[in-house]
């Protein structure tokens, strides 16, 4: 029921039209006319083989990279514009990467503070949010530990918390389980899905792993730079 409700939702949070992207002065064409829309609360997988262009498409959708042609709108804002991009990153979108990309010399708590630092969120609110998220992912007892003292799974769980710190509306995840073993990867993916559903956050996740498809509302197969089919698992 929930899945159907989301799929039928009319509130589009991410919309891409006719995206093109090439590298090496146009010699390597990676994305060729991809269009898609993500609705509020939807978990969408960009699925494809390595080199299919799913990560590049995710970067274009999230405003991390600029398309050669086409347009992207996140919550109606154009992420290609610096001001809109800053607003989006501070308030509306979060990122999870294959590598945790946390700052190793900082503690878990300090890493979680980074998005709040950028958005200048009041301290009381920040503390409460850190406590809540760390408890949700089972890391409340590790807040003062440095990143280098955490396991791979703990680091990725911390990265998910960081992505959710500023109560985003969309999370972009690029192979979030790619650097983890099978079991830990499954735990992390499940945790990601649980948290975003709890917080009514949309997720666009680039992955090559079929096993996570069932946990998504929709799967978009990326092949040769095109979003070629949309499957509902």
């Amino acid at each position: 029921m929930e899945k159907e409700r989301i799929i039928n939702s009319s509130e589009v949070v991410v919309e891409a039209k006719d995206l093109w992207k090439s590298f090496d002065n146009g010699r390597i064409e990676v994305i060729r006319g991809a269009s898609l829309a993500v609705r509020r609360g939807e978990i969408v997988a960009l699925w494809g083989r390595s080199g299919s262009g799913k990560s590049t498409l995710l970067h274009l959708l999230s405003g991390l990279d600029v398309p050669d042609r086409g347009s992207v709108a996140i919550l109606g804002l154009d992420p290609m514009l610096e001001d809109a991009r800053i607003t989006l990153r501070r308030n509306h979108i979060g990122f999870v990467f294959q590598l945790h990309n946390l700052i190793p010399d900082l503690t878990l708590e300090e890493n979680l503070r980074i998005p709040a630092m950028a958005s200048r969120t009041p301290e009381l609110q920040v503390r409460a949010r850190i406590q809540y998220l760390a408890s949700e992912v089972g890391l409340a007892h590790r807040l003062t530990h440095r990143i280098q003292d955490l396991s791979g799974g703990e680091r990725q769980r911390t990265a998910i918390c960081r992505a959710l710190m500023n109560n985003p509306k969309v999370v972009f995840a690029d192979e979030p389980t790619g650097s983890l073993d099978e079991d830990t990867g499954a735990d992390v993916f499940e945790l990601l899905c649980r948290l975003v559903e709890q917080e009514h956050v949309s997720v666009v996740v680039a992955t090559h792993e079929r096993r996570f498809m069932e946990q998504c509302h929709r799967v978009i197969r990326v092949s040769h730079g095109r979003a070629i089919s949309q499957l509902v698992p």
Partner: protein
Amino acid sequence: MNGFARLVFVNLRRHKIRAVISIAGIAFGVAAMLMIVSIVLGAIGMFQGILAKESNYVVFERNVSDLFFSSVGMDQIQALRALPDVERVDPMLVGIVSSPDHPIITCFGLETGDPRIRRASWLKGDPTHFGAMRNTVYLGTRAAEFLKADLGQTIPIGKGTFAVGGIIRTENGFEDGGVFMPLPMAQTYFHRENIVSVATVKLRHDTDGPAFKKAVEASSGGLVALQNEEFNQSYSQFRILHLTSWAVGICSLLLGGMGVANTMLMSVFSRIREIAILRVCGFSKAQIVALVFGEAGVVAGIGAAAGFAIGISGLAIMNSLPQFQGYVRADVRADIVAAILFTAFATALGGALYPAWFAAATQPADALRFE
């Protein structure tokens, strides 16, 4: 410590050796600048002190590059004394003498009753005898020490031999290292009969200054009268010394700044992915720039503090060394400290300009593409 400051310090702590080298660069630059400028200003201050005793105007020959080359006739001195606004005029002939082991000793030719003699502490000898005894010189305490001379002894000075008529301590290191002669004797010794180098003038009232200056300039003798402050600012030797000391100091700080630039550049290059993540988390370009400048600022701040500690200790050590006693009178003024601090921060932040620009221009996608 707030999060932003923590980010600044974490990065410096991560590359401790590199940060310490940068801090040392700034510290030695600040110390060098402080010592050079303070010593030079102290020296200038001492020289000014010689001229400014009980006087408010200095009269000397117009357009001379150095007071040693200035010639003021005794008839001009008499004319100055005759001016209605003038309370007293003290002529002084300045020259360089030598003794066997000391090729350069400053010699002051002074009249009896000159405030430099009158206000000095006479450690040995009788001040009332100054100018009354023939072929007699009077030594500053430092001069007596390095010439190994005592009251009543004779010492060779230049081609002559003179008796020591007294040993005096003044408020001034330069004077303490000098030889004092009665004015007529000095004029004869330096073959400058009826000529002095400079006259220091005390007016009856401060308000008489403009009229006095006009009167001096109207005289046909090519003299100029400058208030002590005007003289300090316009005397070319002081200006050259001043500029040289600042130039040398700034150069040493620039070297430190290059160290900061190198550190910041390495720091930015080595954590480009981290900067990309900060951007992804919502840091604006301005916040990234502030982060890099923050690091440079901390390096400059710690470096400056260490530099002042080193510099002030160095000056204290120099002051305590017998070889420098009297000659080094460090003048650590608040405006100098402020100027050095400004230069240190400007240099460090200047060094961080390119790294900051590079960091701000980092595109997260490029930095994260090949993870």
